[in-house]
């Protein structure tokens, strides 16, 4: 992976890369020159042609999303930037915000120009205190240098960006939950339709994009969709910041084009599995179905390969587990998390997540039989795809994949198999 130019992380090791001076010295805001010679529709077409996919987890084509905004409503159009990075196992946006806040601003300018928006909100996870400081500093600098505000660089285009600090709920990372939270309400996802592109923030057309999605746009504008599409694979063009955590010798994140074999990534960058052989991988944040070591053999880092393996690309940050991992306890961690983070609005999610958690607790306490395992699967079926947002599915998918692929880890806790009752789980 030698011959590619980092797009997203190139300033991570540049001194003062997060300041306007450092940013401009390394080619910052260059894309704007070209941007302002284009028509907004041309920008959308360019991004469409690049086949850039949303990095937030769902992988929806960004250009297509932008084209959904109705331009004739007479209402303002908003861009909301989802910087509420909270998916367990995912930790790359925080570095983007910290090391290169101006790149995000440049991406926002490109996106707002394309969708004809003059106001953007960056919704940042409340815990990212330093990142919020850096973002605000960057916005101040950019305003002073006329990269934001009225008539940006003489283009006639106006844009204001505001940073909104979240209060720490996972569900506010869901796009409509984020909008509710931005409006000052509890972060409860909205029922769709209407979709936010039509009725979004404050009832106006709104586009919600992830941090890395927007950070990819300036490069596309500057270098063209063709150059971007040439990177990575056909279905997954461009580069991404991939992360590894869990039982690896070297945890961290690395930018590279899509398409690298997963095992190469794990062994060359993560320096191999720590403490034993590979047992399981959650490939893109905790809500993606788990993969066994065997399934990872021919896995590549791309949307299409993940899909072919019955899981999702998600956020591109893998959680690695070695052979000594007790998958039942891993799942308990997830059921606890999702039952705690459910907004409580839809019945199947509110009741289902808590039911799964209690069932698993019963199993781990050695009080359950095979009946409970089957019930967990059935409850998962009743949760998936039956709610307003996907949080319910985000637990149902791990439950089903864990129980299917690692049933033995659960069966050893069942009443007839338990020799000594293990420590009580709370």
């Amino acid at each position, binding site marked *: 992976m030698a011959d590619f130019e980092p797009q997203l992380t190139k300033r991570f090791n540049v001194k003062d890369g997060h300041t306007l001076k450092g940013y401009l010295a390394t080619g910052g805001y260059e894309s704007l020159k070209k941007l302002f010679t284009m028509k907004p529709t041309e920008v959308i077409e360019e991004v469409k042609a690049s086949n850039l996919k949303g990095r937030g987890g769902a992988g929806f084509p960004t250009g297509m999303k932008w084209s959904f905004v109705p331009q004739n409503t007479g209402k303002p159009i908003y861009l909301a930037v989802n910087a509420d990075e909270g998916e367990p196992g995912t930790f790359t946006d925080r570095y983007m915000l910290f090391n290169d806040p101006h790149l995000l601003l440049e991406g926002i300018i490109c996106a707002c120009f394309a969708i004809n928006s003059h106001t953007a909100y960056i919704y940042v996870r409340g815990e990212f205190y330093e990142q919020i400081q850096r973002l605000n500093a960057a916005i101040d600098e950019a305003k002073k240098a006329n990269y934001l505000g009225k008539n940006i660089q003489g283009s006639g285009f106006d844009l204001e960006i505001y940073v909104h600090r979240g209060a720490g709920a996972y569900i506010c990372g869901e796009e409509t939950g984020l909008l509710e939270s931005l409006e000052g309400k509890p972060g409860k996802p909205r*029922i769709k339709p209407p979709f936010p592109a039509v009725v979004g923030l404050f009832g106006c057309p709104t586009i919600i994009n992830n941090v890395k999605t927007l950070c990819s746009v300036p490069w596309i504008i500057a270098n063209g969709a063709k150059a971007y599409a040439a990177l990575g694979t056909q279905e997954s063009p461009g580069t991404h910041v991939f992360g590894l955590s869990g039982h690896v010798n070297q945890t961290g994140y690395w930018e590279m084009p899509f398409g690298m074999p997963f095992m190469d990534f794990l062994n060359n960058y993560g320096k191999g599995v720590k403490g034993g052989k590979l047992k399981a991988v959650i490939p893109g944040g905790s809500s993606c179905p788990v993969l066994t070591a065997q399934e990872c053999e021919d896995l590549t880092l791309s949307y299409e390969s993940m899909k072919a393996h019955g899981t999702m690309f998600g956020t591109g940050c893998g959680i690695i587990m070695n052979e000594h991992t007790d998958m039942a306890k891993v799942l308990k961690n997830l059921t606890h998390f999702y039952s705690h983070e459910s907004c*409580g*609005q839809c*019945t*199947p999610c509110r009741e289902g997540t808590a*039911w799964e958690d209690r069932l698993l607790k019963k199993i781990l306490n050695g009080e359950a039989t095979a009946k409970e395992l089957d019930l967990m699967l059935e409850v998962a079926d009743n949760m998936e795809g039956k709610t307003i947002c996907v949080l319910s599915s985000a637990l149902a998918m791990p439950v089903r994949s864990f129980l299917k692929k690692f049933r033995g880890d659960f069966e050893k806790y069942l009443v007839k198999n338990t020799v000594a009752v293990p420590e009580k789980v709370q």
Partner: protein
Amino acid sequence: MAKITIDGKVMEVPDGTNVLEAALSNDVKLEHFCYQRYLPVAGNCRTCMVEIEGPKGNMLTVGCNTKVAEGMVIHTLSPKAKAAQKSAIEMLLLDHPLDCPVCDKAGECKLQNQYMEYGLYDARRDVPRYFKGGKAEDIGEHIMLDQERCVLCTRCIRFVDEVPKTSELAIVNRGHEAKIDIFPGVRLDNAYSGNVTDICPVGALTLKEFRFKQRVWFLKKTESVCHGCARGCNMTVEQNKGHIYRFMPRENPELNKTWMCDEGRFSFDHYQTNRAAEVRVGKENRNLAYGIDQLAKLLQDIPADQVAGIASPTAALEDLYVMKKLFEKRFNPKNLAAPFWDKPGDADNVLKVADKTPNRQGLKLLGFDTEGKDLLARMEKGEFKIVLMMHNNPFGHDEALAQKVYGKVNALIVLSVHQTKTVEKGAMVFPVRTFIEKNGTFVNATSRLQRFRQAFEPENPDVIESSMWLACLANALKVEGFDYVDTPSVFNAMAKEVEALKGLTFNSIPSTGVVLAGLASVAEEPFKGIKAQPNVLGKKCEGECSKA
């Protein structure tokens, strides 16, 4: 209109209707908790799951938030749809306290009813129950909250947000710990608070006035119209063995939707307390036949011009009609008026109007003088020996003025529902029926003719309708043309004579009333400035589909 197919049944529904509404208004059963047709869609209970055929395969979704489209094919009974509906009910019941034996909602609880329809399985929650706590919290003048029974449908929250716009309620906490609560320091005391208990699909919100008073399955329900103000909200009288336990709003899409104010709702006790009980002639309690006989004898010797009639906007249209007819045929119609000295009450832009009588428009319709200045002036001079006072209470409203006006009258003949000050002054008193105990009609402030039906017979057979009493008197006086058998027959005779009522019969009046052409409205339409109808309604559907 859009042509759609639900479970193989082809139907036409208005454009913009949602699938759930389309199903319910066409007699297709589809269960739901959070949907209330006069409140915005929340889509959170996930029980109205349907399968909709599409080009990319069938889609499982909620009916309430899916608008119909031409040619849409919907399945509510497919295995996938049934499984989703069933599992949603199971989840709603998961941590429910199942205290039905002591819950006032039992018998009209959606959770109970739907369990009978979709459940009947063995409980599968063999893990510890999650206790929400919050048992019987006093949250308002009329309202008790049981958080542990709540299914978090948010109907009550949407109601207080949308209709009275007072927003006292909210959900606190997240996930399975979420519960409905009032904001700290706030009480649920708005003028429409009782409605939250009607729309609560379970027993989480109950009325203090109804708690532990009566099991709902003993209640007999009668279509009626609220007597409390000139809005005339549609309601049902719910009683058992002649005791009224509650008034419940009855759906009328063109008038009160499914709402009514607390003032009207809790007025039920007024109609069963302090009632005028016995026929009184002079100082003695006698029976009705004797009283009428004595009155007829008295009237025989008095010149017709010395008899005046005082009617009231609280009387039914039929009472007023018979009184007018009696004065036309036997006495002098110029000596009949309806001065009613009440003070206007409070009004708002939701339902309440300032006029707190139910039938002032009815007086207008029949040409009554509602001021009676001339008549009262002559009364004061002592031109009248006998006054027939029907449902009016001048001594209660303004005793000094009444004494001045009526002081020279020889005999006040009082027809009254309640034991009033005017009753005390009466030379003869005849207790009559409330609107609950009789059939009849009112015309409301927006000129809507509305019918109310008799809920029960009063215990005392001498307590009869004013219209029938007047007919008895007419017959005793041997005046022709008063051979009415009951109130509906009075209405039918009246409809033949009164232009605005032509073509109507008592039983052909729609249960939601009919607006009378040619009678000007005297009040604003209800819900001014309030978006109380966020959903496109399907075909008219009365009763269960909307209320609970």
